[in-house]
């Protein structure tokens, strides 16, 4: 019995020890030091991407019809704004393209992205775990990642359908999957190639690449959207603004 126990320990422990030694990239402080240095803040560059805005996504008929009716309602003035005016964060993928900087932190087994807009964050597990079998559906999804040389490849699933694919009328299903490839195209230029697949909403994968400039001297600033939000959207999409001010003459 004792022998079996030791055998069991050996079977479990040896591969673990070997892994710790050879190392999954980004699993130890030592291996992090060999990865690209991503310090400072990153802000999306004017124009968005190195190759322009890219091709629009190819929507399946029901999702194309939904977008069309949304756009018609916008043109009629029936829909004037989105829940973001009420401080609801964009969720993925839109939260990665806000006109506010992001910070990328590498720690053993995890990459954390701090997103100034709406004070959001994403955690990307690089410790070898898989997605949960039946993930909870969230705004920013569940992300796992690994390094292919100097490129961080991130795979995300588990998105709530409350968020949009692009403009707010362009929606996705809970089958949406996002693969992002992060790489330094130049010392102070980060490019993220984002490929979205969604068997229900898209007829083919949709890829866009966006560039971010480095600002080493910036630090993140607080963004509490509810602090003094005077914009609002009603449940049926009408926009409004609150002009009440203390001591109005």
């Amino acid at each position, binding site marked *: 019995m004792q022998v079996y126990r030791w055998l069991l320990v050996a079977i479990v422990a040896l591969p673990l020890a070997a892994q710790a030694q050879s190392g999954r990239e980004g699993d130890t402080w030592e291996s992090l030091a060999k990865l690209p240095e991503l310090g400072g803040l990153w802000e*999306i560059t*004017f124009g968005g991407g190195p190759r322009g805005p890219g091709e629009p996504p190819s929507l399946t008929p029901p999702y194309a019809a939904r977008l069309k009716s949304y756009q018609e309602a916008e043109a009629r003035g029936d829909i004037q704004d989105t829940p973001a005016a009420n401080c609801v964060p964009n969720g993925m993928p839109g939260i990665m393209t806000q006109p506010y900087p992001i910070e990328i932190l590498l720690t053993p087994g995890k990459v954390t992205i701090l997103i100034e807009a709406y004070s959001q964050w994403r955690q990307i597990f690089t410790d070898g775990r898989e997605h949960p079998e039946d993930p909870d559906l969230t705004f920013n999804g569940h992300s796992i990642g690994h390094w292919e040389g100097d490129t961080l490849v991130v795979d995300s699933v588990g998105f709530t359908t409350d968020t949009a694919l692009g403009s707010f009328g362009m929606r996705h299903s809970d089958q949406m999957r996002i693969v992002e490839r992060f790489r330094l195209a130049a010392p102070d230029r980060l490019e993220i190639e984002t490929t979205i697949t969604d068997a229900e909403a898209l007829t083919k994968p949709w890829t866009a690449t966006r560039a971010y400039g480095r600002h080493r001297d910036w630090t993140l600033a607080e963004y509490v*959207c509810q602090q003094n939000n005077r914009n609002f*959207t009603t449940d049926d999409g009408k926009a409004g603004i609150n*002009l009440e*001010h203390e001591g109005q*003459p």
Partner: protein
Amino acid sequence: MNASSTVTKGRMREFACWAVALAAGLLLGGVAAAHHSFSVFDMQTDKVIEGEIVEFQWTNPHTWTWIDVTNADGSKTRWGLEGMSPNFLGRRGWSKNTFKPGDKVKAVIWPLKSGEPGGTLQRATLPDGTEVVNFGRGPG
């Protein structure tokens, strides 16, 4: 023109480009809008108002500049002007002290379509003649 003012000018031009792009929703190639749409503002009209700063709210998601404008009959109307966030402006030369209560300023705005006394602040001229760009087409 010295080097630093050239840099400032270049920075300002980039800033104005940003602002126009944001306003037009061009920046993100239709991928994500910023905080809200501009449906309530008349972006075809540059309206000029002159008055006295009552309060400059250095807050998210927008700064708000409150100006009392004296009307022809001597009465006053308080205008509320939405601006870019402290996060955006703070990285581009603005601070919570850019406008002080009592400052007499001239502001170029996109007015509310509703006719209420409010709008989007594009730029303003400070008491010492300095022009500060918040949003929109910028100087020139």
